């Protein structure tokens, strides 16, 4: 090389190559990002096109406000309200179980347990996520159904409560590990600052650590909720699947997910009932989408408030 120095690095060919590589990388990342959105949109379109027939023949508003679900009678009655309410009841119970238990467990692990206990508990919680939902269902059938029947003097132990409790336990690992991450992310300086002002560990947790981690804990609860509302197998095994309007958590309920799973195998492809089940899927999709969107908005607002 005749040039004084660094001629190689600045050679035009190399720059062109690097620019091209940059372009390719950027293109790939863009494509991946957009692919997620396209897939989501495709799911919505797929559900909607299959639901068109039901909307045309049974009518969306009459389905959403209908209180009777008799899909096999003549003519079929396709009121989705019992199913929507069933899902909400079960999910509500699940939340009542997993939020207090999950947040308390996360606080214990992050703020109070010593190192060894923390490791043990974290492993147990990870193991909980690995247990298939059918197994949770089996335990529920063997233990919880008879217990609920006896404890509340019911005719059947298959209730929204039973399903909800098991779903709550199933959501626990999600809530615990994400809440624990959020608590862990609170700077130790803040805890020490609080301790130096004469606060006990518990006061510090309640007054500083939990508020500072609140957005992460909220996200944890939302993810747990997402898991609970979408879960199918355990609720199918535990809630009794009576498609009636529930009046309390001691009633047997049938959830949207349970309905789709139980009935999809027995319907005529392309028929009205088939199309109605897609409408159920579409409603479920809309509900989870709305929950996630709401969670995102809340989180974003929180982030703006806490992190200046």
């Amino acid at each position, binding site marked *: 090389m005749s040039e004084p120095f660094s001629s190689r690095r600045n050679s035009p060919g190399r720059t062109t190559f690097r620019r091209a590589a940059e372009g390719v990388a950027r293109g790939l990342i863009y494509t991946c990002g957009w692919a997620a959105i396209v897939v989501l949109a495709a799911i919505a379109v797929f559900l909607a096109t299959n639901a068109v027939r039901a909307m045309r023949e049974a009518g969306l508003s009459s389905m959403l406000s209908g209180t009777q679900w008799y899909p096999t009678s003549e003519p079929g009655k396709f009121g989705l309200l019992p199913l929507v309410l069933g899902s909400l009841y079960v999910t509500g119970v699940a939340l009542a179980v997993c939020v207090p238990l999950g947040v308390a467990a996360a606080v214990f692990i992050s703020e109070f347990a010593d190192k060894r206990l923390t490791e043990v508990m974290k492993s147990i919680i990870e193991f909980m996520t690995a247990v298939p939902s059918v197994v949770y269902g089996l335990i529920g059938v063997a233990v919880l159904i008879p217990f609920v029947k006896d404890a509340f003097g019911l005719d059947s132990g298959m209730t929204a409560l039973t399903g909800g409790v098991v779903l709550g336990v199933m959501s626990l690992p999600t809530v615990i590990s994400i809440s624990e991450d959020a608590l862990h992310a609170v*700077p130790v*300086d*803040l*805890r*020490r*600052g*609080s*301790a*130096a*002002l*004469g*606060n*006990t560990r518990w*006061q510090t947790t309640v*007054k*500083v650590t939990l*508020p*500072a981690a609140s957005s992460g804990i909220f996200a944890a609860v939302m993810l747990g909720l997402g898991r609970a509302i979408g879960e199918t197998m355990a609720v199918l095994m535990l809630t009794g699947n009576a498609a009636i309007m529930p009046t309390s958590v001691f009633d047997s309920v049938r959830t949207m997910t349970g309905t789709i799973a139980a009935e999809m195998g027995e319907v005529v492809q392309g028929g009205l009932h088939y199309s109605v089940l897609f409408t159920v899927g579409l409603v479920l999709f809309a509900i989870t989408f709305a929950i996630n969107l709401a969670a995102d908005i809340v989180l974003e607002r929180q982030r703006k*408030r*806490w*992190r*200046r």
Partner: protein
Amino acid sequence: MVIPLHVSGNGGIAAGMRNLNAGSGGADEGEPRFLREEDEGDDPVVGVSAVAEAEGGLGAFALADVSVSYGRDRVLEGVSMDIPAQKVTALIGPSGCGKSTLLRCLNRMNDEYGDVRVTGTIALDGQDVMAKGVDPVELRMRVGQVFQRPNPFPMTIFENVAYGPRTQGIRARDELSAVVEESLRGAALWDEVKNSLKKHAFELSGGQQQRLCIARALATKPEVILMDEPASALDPISTQQIEDTIAELKSTVTIVIVTHNMQQAARISDLTAFMLRESLDRPAHLIEVGDTKHMFTNPDDPRTESYITGRFG
């Protein structure tokens, strides 16, 4: 070994205790505040340091043979010194010489750092702070701390300052407001924030945040404030403001400050303690402690002189 300089009865200590909850009825008047009820009278050390007696002020520490170990590693050994009330005492020395560790002994913050063992005696106004009956939580209301990096809580300016008083049980809004204003004035921050008390503390600059942390520490009406390199993360102007604040505060509280900045120690402190860990095989120890002017002009120990003139560290 504890050799109390002056032994007095329980009444003697009680007389020396300031009732922190002034205005709250004085329910615990006459009782050492950080003693739990059931441990009353168990206090092994009732020596009142001669310094505190002489000064007549509160917030004097007397350290005797204080040693600290992290696990099996002894990091600090045999520190004996008096920290006079209502003076600024600077702890200087190279990194790793145990300044911050010693500082954390004074409000038992070492308890929060895991496997730390402290031996010897540390008496605050004659009362051993490491005695079994002493609740570190109560102690820390009397001995506040300001940390190296500003650590305001994620809440409003007002709530940050009101945090300590609330812990002490002050609920009335006007009382809280009064404490907040007084504390913010004490930390020379009031004029800058008086119209924005409801703003989030994170909106303040680094220097303002640190003064907020000082105000927060003042709000519990402590006798002593410990500062662990309070200005090392700040720009020169903010540092100047913190130093001015310290100069004003020392008429009411005892200040113990750890600093790496020798000019700072020379500027603001009345007393300087020089600490050194000469090798990793041996724990750090106190080389000498004395009047700041004396320490910086004519130190007794050649190692102090070397450090101050910048020959090592």
